[in-house]
């Protein structure tokens, strides 16, 4: 097998086992895409991982992680309006940040074409909601293609780029978590690697790209007409099972669930599998409705297709019974094979047998995610907790430090969206002299959407303590660089120190403490909480997951561990109950504490938490037991 990067640039057709996100990158190469932008967010970051596998000098397109999704769309639009076929990708909620620009795109003439890949997250596996971005596509006259598998992701990306270029517009490719992360053998086409035409193609004559006044109506008319004209043949298909009574209309991953569930069913319904979910083809839908007495629209999340299908049935005067969401649960979660079996069995018990019940089986204790061994955020929460009063209000933000809300720390009692903590904190402090308010903010998030909230606190004289959790990386999504790290995706770059930004804004009350220095951090936060106006504590420590991975790769590396001295340990269990490092374990019978050497990285941040001085770092082979 060739290295991934070489494979993605192969000139002859080939077959390979890849995940959906990787398949998209080969699609970009074959389609002649010139500019790709993003901001990291699950389920899409592996698209960038695949791009990174291609040596920068050989990459047929420019790629960058931008400071946030809005800027990412703007950079891609700027390139596309100048004739470069472009792609932007991000997670579901990224579209909210991008939407001020995104909703305008199809008012424009975009000669290069622009494909917007969104990674929606039914089941909220790694997002703060399950939002269905088909709604934003409808609002902005954007066509939507929805693949069900890695093979389709690749094929639909090629189609999306070709639609976008042909009609000089923006097209949405809507991925979902388990399409991004599904793996299968995909057959790719060839790539001639011919020279690209980079003539700057922007033509702004006659105010063609200025949506003001009378132009808006003209632009909107073009957007609506272009939306209808953009459909390519062959995206939707019918699977005939010879059933004149029942049909199912579905799309995306739920289609594969339907196939699974129906594989053993009696009297299989016919299936209309949609590849383009907006706008729907009236001919295809009404033809399918006409051929069946009863049609179920089986779609994940909202009733987006269902509403249109019902309207089409009404307008076409058809008496076909159209079924869709049957109860509130049908709007929630992922339509896995298990869920689809429940739904089909509820509706058609004569055809589909009930799901297997796992209810009586022995259950395992719940396991929540948690901060890694050595995480600087843990030391921070442990120390900050000591400076807080019971009725203080702590506002979390998005990132690894969100996990501080869980036991044992329980710090950060409100969470909304990236950068929201400062604004929410300011509102909480109004008419409130009793309860002090603390907002948390990660460093990548500071640049992404955090700065306006900080400025508002200065502008409107709010009382707030802001704690910037600076770990030198975008940790939660897989350690991407950000403007404070001194590197971008491709090269070294001028580092933007957060402290200097804050000082530049005129904030005077700023303290910077390494979180492993727990006593100093407690003191700093205690002082900040007592000061009027805006006070900032920068609680910094490098991400230890990233750090320990880098250390392990170095030759001659020896893993150190922390050891619990049985003689000194008084079973105060501060290390477990309040510090909460997962590297400690408890003997179920004796209650004694020891170290899990699979997990402990020997960072020693726990040592200072022990009231009986029972913890110490040791090199391997030196353990006393």
């Amino acid at each position, binding site marked *: 097998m060739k290295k991934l990067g070489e494979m993605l640039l192969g000139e002859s057709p080939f077959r390979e086992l890849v995940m959906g996100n990787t398949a998209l990158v080969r699609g970009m190469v074959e389609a002649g895409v010139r500019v790709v932008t993003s901001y990291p967010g699950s389920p899409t970051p592996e698209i960038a991982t695949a791009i990174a596998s291609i040596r920068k000098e050989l990459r047929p397109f420019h790629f960058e992680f931008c400071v946030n999704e809005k800027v990412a769309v703007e950079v891609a639009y700027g390139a596309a309006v100048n004739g470069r076929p472009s792609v932007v990708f991000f997670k579901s909620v990224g579209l909210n940040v991008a939407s001020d620009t995104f909703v305008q795109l199809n008012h424009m003439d975009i000669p290069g074409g622009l494909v917007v890949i969104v990674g929606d997250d039914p089941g909220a596996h790694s997002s703060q909601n399950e939002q269905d971005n088909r709604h934003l596509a409808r609002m902005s006259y954007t066509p939507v293609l929805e693949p069900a598998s890695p093979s389709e992701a690749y094929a639909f990306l090629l189609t999306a780029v070709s639609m976008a270029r042909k009609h000089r517009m923006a097209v949405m490719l809507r991925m979902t978590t*388990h399409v991004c992360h599904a793996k*299968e053998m995909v057959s790719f086409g060839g790539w001639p690697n011919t020279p690209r035409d980079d003539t700057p193609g922007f033509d702004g004559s006659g105010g063609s790209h200025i949506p003001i006044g009378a132009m808006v109506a003209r632009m909107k008319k073009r957007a609506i007409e272009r939306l209808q004209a953009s459909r390519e043949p062959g995206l939707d298909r019918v699977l005939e099972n010879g059933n004149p009574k029942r049909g199912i209309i579905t799309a995306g991953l739920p289609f594969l669930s339907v196939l699974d569930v129906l594989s053993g069913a009696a009297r299989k319904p016919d299936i209309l599998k949609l590849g383009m979910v907006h706008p729907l083809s009236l001919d295809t839908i009404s033809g399918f409705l006409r051929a069946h007495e009863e049609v179920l629209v089986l779609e994940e999340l909202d009733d987006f297709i269902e509403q249109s299908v019902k309207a089409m049935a009404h307008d076409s005067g058809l008496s076909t019974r159209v079924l869709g969401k049957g109860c509130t649960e049908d709007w929630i979660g992922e339509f896995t094979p298990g869920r689809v079996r429940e739904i089909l069995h509820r509706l058609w018990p004569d055809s589909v047998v009930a799901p297997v019940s796992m209810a009586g089986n022995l259950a395992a204790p719940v396991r*929540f995610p948690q901060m890694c061994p050595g995480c600087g955020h843990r030391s921070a929460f442990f120390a900050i907790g000591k400076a807080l009063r019971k009725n203080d209000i702590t506002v979390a933000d998005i990132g690894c430090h969100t*996990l501080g809300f*869980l036991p044992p720390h329980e710090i950060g009692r409100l969470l909304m969206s990236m950068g929201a903590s400062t604004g929410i904190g300011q509102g909480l402090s109004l008419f409130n002299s009793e309860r002090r308010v603390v907002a948390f903010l990660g460093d990548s998030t500071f640049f992404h959407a955090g700065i306006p909230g900080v400025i508002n606190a200065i502008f409107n004289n709010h009382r707030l303590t802001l704690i910037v959790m600076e770990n030198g990386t975008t940790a939660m999504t897989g350690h991407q660089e950000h403007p404070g790290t001194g590197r971008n995706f491709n090269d070294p770059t001028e580092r933007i120190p957060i402290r200097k930004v804050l000082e530049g804004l005129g904030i005077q009350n700023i303290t910077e403490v390494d979180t492993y220095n727990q006593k100093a951090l407690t003191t700093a936060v205690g002082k900040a909480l007592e000061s009027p106006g805006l006070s900032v504590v920068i609680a910094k420590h490098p991400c230890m*997951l990233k750090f320990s991975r880098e250390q392990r790769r170095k030759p001659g590396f020896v893993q150190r561990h922390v050891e619990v001295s049985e003689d000194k340990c008084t079973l105060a269990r501060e290390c477990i109950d309040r510090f909460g490092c997962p590297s*400690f374990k408890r003997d179920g019978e004796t209650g004694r504490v020891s170290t899990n050497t699979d997990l402990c990285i020997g960072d020693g941040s726990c040592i200072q938490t022990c009231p009986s001085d029972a913890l110490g770092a040791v090199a391997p082979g030196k353990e006393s037991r």
Partner: protein
Amino acid sequence: MNIHMTGVGGQGIGLLSELLLRALSVAGMEVRGVDTHGLAQRGGVVNSQIRTGSGEFSPLIAPGGADLVLALERHEALRAVGGYLRDKGALAYYDAVWQPFEVRNGSVPGVSTEALHEECRRRDIRAVRVFRDDLPDPRMQNTALLAEVLHNDLIPGLRPEHVTQAMEDLLQGGALKANLEILGVR
């Protein structure tokens, strides 16, 4: 065949499932796989599923639909058996214990090997426990588990040379050498 793999973030489920997926493909099977990692590596549960067979179908396995569970941690072995494994299926698990918070702080009891095996007996599930004290690095527990999958012939049609080939495709240098050694193709 439906294989459900599970462990805690950081244990190497990703590599285990990549290796297995590729090895099954080398063995000539049509395969589909999918990873579910939620909040990435942050000490949460990581699941990965592989299905073999021909035609178009979902990469996801329904509850009670797995024929084989491979687990890298004891608590997660029990969770996967209870959530995904069919009666009369098979479990192979590496007996590492990464206690969840409530077990560490003593508010709920942990899962013992006895309880796990008793649950397997009740449901007529074959259980294979793997544990080795000679591993140079805990990150090789996944390969130790894979070695026992081969040794016990838990996946019909999968032979050591298929796994070796997959390892050569995916790993290099010292890591390749060390993992091939653990695999100890017998």
